[in-house]
């Protein structure tokens, strides 16, 4: 741990000198409120399992499962993220300045995930209560089986958006290539406009809530329908 350099602004951890395990262990028992991480070079599992109200800045691209299971911490990635960004986040905030690969925010229970660029396929799959704001487009099958939480897409959505949705709600500013089974467009209400305004503000995107459409579950898959003859 000799290469940890403390400064007035916090701690700098350089993955060129430290192992991933050393960096994650330091983040699990933080002595500073702010930590900067250098040279991630696409490594997996960086800044996972944090549970303290610290800010973490990662300078560069990260690999699989970055900031997974996050609680309380605010993690900013100045680069792109691999698959499973902020998967199973419980609280706090994760932001990626570039693009995020598949399954960003998968199964996240709480907190806010902000993706400045595009998100690939299956963004917010099985979402369980977190909020996701995507500055660009989302790929196909986004919000698949999403159970709770809100997803704001400032760009376009791919195929099968919101397939088999439960109670999560999706707001899309651009084009929707196709809706998934049981997902439907619904009118925006005053509370929807308030939600979108609040989330855009938190994510610092300068769009009007008036530009967004609401997608939610038609709830036709909630109960077995004998007349459907399994033709779902």
């Amino acid at each position, binding site marked *: 741990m000799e290469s940890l350099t403390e400064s007035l602004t916090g701690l700098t951890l350089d993955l060129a000198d430290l192992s991933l395990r050393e960096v994650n262990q330091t983040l699990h028992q933080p002595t500073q409120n702010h930590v900067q991480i250098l040279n991630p*070079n*696409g*490594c*997996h599992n960086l800044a996972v399992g944090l549970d303290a109200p610290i800010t973490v800045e990662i300078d560069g*691209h990260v*690999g*699989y499962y970055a900031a997974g299971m996050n609680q309380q911490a605010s993690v900013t990635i100045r680069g*792109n993220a*691999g*698959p499973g960004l902020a998967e199973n986040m419980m609280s706090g905030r994760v932001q990626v300045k*570039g*693009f995020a*690969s*598949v399954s960003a925010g998968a199964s996240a229970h709480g907190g806010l995930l902000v993706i400045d660029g595009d998100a*690939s*396929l299956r963004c917010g799959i099985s979402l369980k209560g977190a909020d996701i704001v995507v500055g660009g487009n989302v*790929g*196909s*099958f986004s919000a698949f089986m999403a159970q709770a939480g809100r997803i704001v897409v400032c760009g376009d959505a791919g195929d099968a958006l919101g397939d088999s949705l439960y109670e999560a709600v999706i707001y899309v500013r651009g084009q929707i290539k196709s809706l998934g089974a049981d997902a439907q467009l619904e009118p925006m209400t005053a509370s929807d406009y308030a939600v979108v305004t609040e989330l855009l503000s938190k994510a610092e995107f300068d769009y009007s809530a008036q530009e967004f459409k609401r997608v939610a579950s038609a709830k036709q898959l909630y109960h077995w329908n004998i007349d459907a003859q399994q033709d779902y």
Partner: protein
Amino acid sequence: MCGIVGLLIKKPELRESLGAWMVPMLIGMSERGPDSAGLAVFTSQLAGERRKYSLYSGQAIFDWGELIQVFRQRFGMNLTLEAQENHAVLTAEIAPAEIKAWLKQSHPTLYLLSVGRSIDLYKDTGNAAELCNRYSFQALKGTHLVGHTRMATESAVTPAHAHPFTAGEDFCLVHNGALSNHHQIRRQLEPQGIQFETDNDTEAACRFLEWRMREGDDLETALQKGFTELDGFYTFLMGTDDKLALVRDAFACKPAVVAETDDYVAIASEFRSLAHLPNIHDASIYEPVPEEIYVWKV
């Protein structure tokens, strides 16, 4: 899980660096594919009817010196053989059918890895670092290459099952994923006289695409047909004498990242295999979109 890497050098003066830039890429994908590795490198084309034949002798110690004598007695003096341990590249003005028949009869233990005017192919079981050392990949020069690290999921771990697969001349393919209808593809191709060397799913994709191109499709048209005919999960990276091509299936379960600068196009399953490349921080970095055909020309 498997790892794929590809590299195309745009500026001729940098083509001496092909191997040195690639070695950390391939080794970087070792965790994704620890059981086998392989590489196809494309060099400038041989003139006329001369062709390169990549040969593999397996585990046995092979007397390449004796082989070159026998070759010369049979086919004349105008041929060369460059050997490294269990691998050799034969360069000769001999038709592929003739050399295949002769090898089968006189040296049935030798395995013909590739044929073409610009392709050299290496593959074996073992990890990527071992292969890089054994075959001196660091020193490779050329225009472009395609590499693979394998974690077998649906067929045996043998040198023949390692990637890249080849079919025809100057064509190879590596695959991350698994095809679900490769038996069907096989049944479609075998009546056309197309012979398979393994029971591997990737070989079916490789032979399907090469068959389409032999039937007159260009690479892009063949790949478009592949989207409808090949079922399963895949990121395919292919090399021809003057192109690298990349496609991902509609579900994009298998990753790929592209980094492009004025000097090179580099492709890998993950960014960690690209992080060492020169000027990577100024590169245009993107994830290829599902069911879109990406082709880069030398």
